[in-house]
């Protein structure tokens, strides 16, 4: 049934030993009188908190693993799971909304709203991906939905500061227990749901046929699949409701099981939940161990949910490196040849109108003239325009070099990498630190993604997955800072959301110079952009050196992304969307596409900045958040049009 390969087997055994060892260490530390706990309380602490915590880790990990397996089987997509498909973000958003409406929710009600949010997200993703559920389009639809849910979440948190702390503490995945209630509830639900799901999966495996074959057998199969997906969503969202968002366990567990040689459905059913349980126990053991190691020096708690993406991302990137991830081909977008110059003219006209209106409106401040506001406004409008230009150019270059229409600074993890770099720079101090951090973060992320992509021959699945891994990792690190309770967290939060309103004259001019330089260099890169997609051999035959070309393009993209992220944050979607918008309006070929995309992305960000200023006066909504809220539906409509 399972033929265990040697090295992965040894690694798994090591992981299990480490998890058990760390767990035992935290129990013995509680008993240690030097720890300062009164002996009678220490005994209670172990039975009421530490032991339930072990159960919660095992049960949650197992539940997420099983849920992921169901997603993959039913959707026939090896990368589908609750986190990548936006289910966890949907649940998080649902629970956050409910928490803000009523100060305190009991866990059962949390589960209910979490399930509603998770199902809504899942429905949206499946609807968007349509018949492409087996391909990478599903993953991108999931990424978009979870990023949008994430930006709504941040928006709420930013303006509901009374709840900010509580919501972030819960969302960051703190596994601490105050009793055995959660462990019991999880065990009960898992005991009810797991057998049901196993039966459904076995039943569905009998119909492991093509969609056409399934349809021939009648609608019952579709209903069964939907039921299985619904139950798997319930499983994942109940974990979210109890312990917060635990990312990557669902993604990593099935891959670990596959890496351990589990080929048959039966073997995977057995191994996947176990892998998930061990992974979460290990992450929790590390979180507690780090807490003990630094006790007496740190003033905050390390939530386990922050560590799982770190562990999961490492495992995932390693598996991608070892090329153990199955891949499905993606399809390229057809470009239309229409009237490129007219498309560019239209885009520039719209941009000009947006800029003028944004500079002149005084809707909320009738007492002031535009001239008085000019001093504060031109930097933010300029930085929105330049960020749009830079993200669009980066997007066009990335899509051309990877040959993947869903690749972009945002989806490949460059923007989140830059965002993480900015946060690091913020705490390291100084304005210079911000820019260095942004560019270094983007470059590191890109380097990692490209190394992995190259090993996987730039197949779209692994490429996007590596991007998702890096993006989730960066987001986890940022939420750790926010959950720490440091009053600067609000600043980090705002930074990570793309605050054009923070634009300073000097920064705006620097950004504009970078954008101009990007625009001027762009024509020099066009030759490479046309040659590289033809393949390395062709490129060499045409006199280009592919390695040099890729390196130069990589630095180009990373620098532009770094500057842009500094202005509008990591989640604007401008780089993902603009190339598609340009195509829709008839700009064909990388040259026209670049210019046209730049104008549209700039328009999007100027509009987002303007709307952010007007909607909630005197509070200002960061342009990055609004751009993703405005842009994501637009993007989804664009990719939906293709069908």
């Amino acid at each position, binding site marked *: 049934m399972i033929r265990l390969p040697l090295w992965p087997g040894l690694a798994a055994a090591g992981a299990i030993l480490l998890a058990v060892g760390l767990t035992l260490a935290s129990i013995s530390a509680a008993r240690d009188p030097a720890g300062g706990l009164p002996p009678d309380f220490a005994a209670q602490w172990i039975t009421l908190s530490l032991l339930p915590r072990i159960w919660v880790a095992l049960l949650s990990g197992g539940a997420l693993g099983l849920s992921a397996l169901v997603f993959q089987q039913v959707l026939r997509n090896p990368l589908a799971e609750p986190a990548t498909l936006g289910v966890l973000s949907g649940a998080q958003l649902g629970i956050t909304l409910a928490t803000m409406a009523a100060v*305190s929710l009991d866990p059962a009600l949390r589960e209910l709203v979490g399930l509603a949010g998770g199902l809504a997200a899942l429905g949206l993703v499946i609807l968007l991906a349509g018949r492409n559920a087996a391909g990478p389009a599903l993953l991108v639809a999931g990424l978009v939905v979870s990023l949008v849910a994430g930006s709504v979440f941040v928006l709420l948190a930013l303006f509901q500061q*009374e709840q900010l702390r509580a919501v972030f503490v819960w969302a960051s995945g703190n596994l601490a227990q*105050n009793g055995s209630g959660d462990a019991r509830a999880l065990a009960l639900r898992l005991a009810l749901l797991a057998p049901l799901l196993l039966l459904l999966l076995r039943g569905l495996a009998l119909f492991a046929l093509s969609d056409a074959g399934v349809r021939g057998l009648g609608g019952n199969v579709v209903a069964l699949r939907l039921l299985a997906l619904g139950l798997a969503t319930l499983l994942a969202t109940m974990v979210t409701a109890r312990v917060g968002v635990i990312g990557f366990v669902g993604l990593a567990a099935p891959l670990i099981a596959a890496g351990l040689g589990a080929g048959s459905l039966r073997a995977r059913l057995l191994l996947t939940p176990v892998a998930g349980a061990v992974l979460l126990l290990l992450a929790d053991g590390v979180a507690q161990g780090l807490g003990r190691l630094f006790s007496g020096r740190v003033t905050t708690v390390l939530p386990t949910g922050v560590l799982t993406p770190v562990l999961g991302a490492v495992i995932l990137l390693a598996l991608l490196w070892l090329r153990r991830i199955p891949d499905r081909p993606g399809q390229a977008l057809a470009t239309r040849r229409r009237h490129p110059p007219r498309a560019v003219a239209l885009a520039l006209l719209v941009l000009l109108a947006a800029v003028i209106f944004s500079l002149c409106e005084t809707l909320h401040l009738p007492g002031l003239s535009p001239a008085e506001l000019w001093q504060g406004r031109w930097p933010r409008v300029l930085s929105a325009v330049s960020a749009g230009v830079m993200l669009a150019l980066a997007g066009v270059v990335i899509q051309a070099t990877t040959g993947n229409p869903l690749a972009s600074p945002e989806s490949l993890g460059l923007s989140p990498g830059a965002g993480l770099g900015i946060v690091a720079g913020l705490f390291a101090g100084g304005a210079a630190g911000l820019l260095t951090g942004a560019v270094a973060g983007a470059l590191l992320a890109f380097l990692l993604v490209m190394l992995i992509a190259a090993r996987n021959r730039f197949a779209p699945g692994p490429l996007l997955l590596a991007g998702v891994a890096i993006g989730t990792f960066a987001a986890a690190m940022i939420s750790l800072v926010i959950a720490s309770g*440091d009053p600067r967290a609000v600043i980090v939060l*705002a930074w990570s959301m793309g605050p054009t309103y923070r634009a300073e004259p000097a920064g705006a001019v620097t950004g504009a110079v970078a954008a101009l330089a990007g625009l001027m260099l762009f024509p020099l890169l066009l030759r490479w952009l046309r040659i590289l997609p033809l393949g390395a051999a062709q490129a060499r035959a045409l006199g280009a050196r592919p390695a040099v070309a890729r390196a130069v393009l990589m630095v180009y993209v990373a620098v532009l992304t770094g500057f842009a992220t500094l202005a509008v944050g990591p989640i604007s979607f401008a780089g993902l969307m603009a190339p598609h918008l340009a195509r829709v309006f008839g700009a064909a070929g990388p040259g026209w596409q670049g210019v046209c995309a730049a104008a549209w992305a700039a328009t999007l960000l100027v509009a987002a900045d303007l709307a952010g200023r007007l909607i909630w006066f005197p509070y200002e909504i960061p342009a990055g958040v609004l751009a993703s809220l405005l842009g994501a539906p637009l993007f989804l409509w664009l990719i939906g049009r293709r069908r």
Partner: protein
Amino acid sequence: MVAGLALSRRQVVAGAAAVLWGGAARAASRGAATDRIVALDWALAETLVALGVAPLAVAEAPLYARRVVEPALPAGTRDIGLRSWPNLEALRALQPDLILAMAGYGIAPARLERIAPVRAFPLYSEARRPLDLARQAVRDLGGLTGRGAQAAELLDRLDAALAGPRLDDRPLLIVKFADDRLLDVFGAGSLFHDVLRPLGATNAWTGPTNAWGFASTGLEALAGHPEARLVIIEPAPPPRLADSPLWRALPQVRAGRVTLLPPVWVFGGVPSALRFARLLGAA
């Protein structure tokens, strides 16, 4: 206590009247004391109000009413946006003579300077003596607003409150819950810590704290101080905390030594210190 509260209300009314009658004339002569002030930080906003000055605008004014509570902002105080990021255009439209900010927090003073002169007070910092710095802020603000007498009177009230009836010598743990499993415990560097000492009480928390004077931790950290009284600053923790077995196993809870204190601003100034001392004495 009640007398003190009434006095401060009367001062507020007097201050508001002073703004109405004398504000325009004073603002006209630049460089002189001013009342056209915007406070971006609540510690400075509460100090202004306690001195009888009605601020033009305060950041997140609606939330101030729930977190700082007293002294209440005069009706008509405008909201100027987030404390970390006020609306600069609205700020410019108000044409203040002075902007008050917490040093090291929020928007860089250099940007505000383009709108109006800025005073940034470093109440919470690595210096870790917020009460001393808050007293200095009262004196400074008294000078800036021409309310030296009110400032002296406010400081006298603080001294009187701190010299008031001693608390019993049981150590205290001052905490605020983030959710039912994570809490902030206030130690060295917090306003509460500085108030406890002169009142004759000791802060049980001797562990490390950040620059704002608190540490985040789980319930178990409280068990290390079984003899202490647990003082919880509202907003109260979620009701499910009280039902949880671990909470009921805490030595302080078993001995019934838990006190719930109405909201006090944890990063406050002298008025918050007064409110904390009064609420603690009454508890």
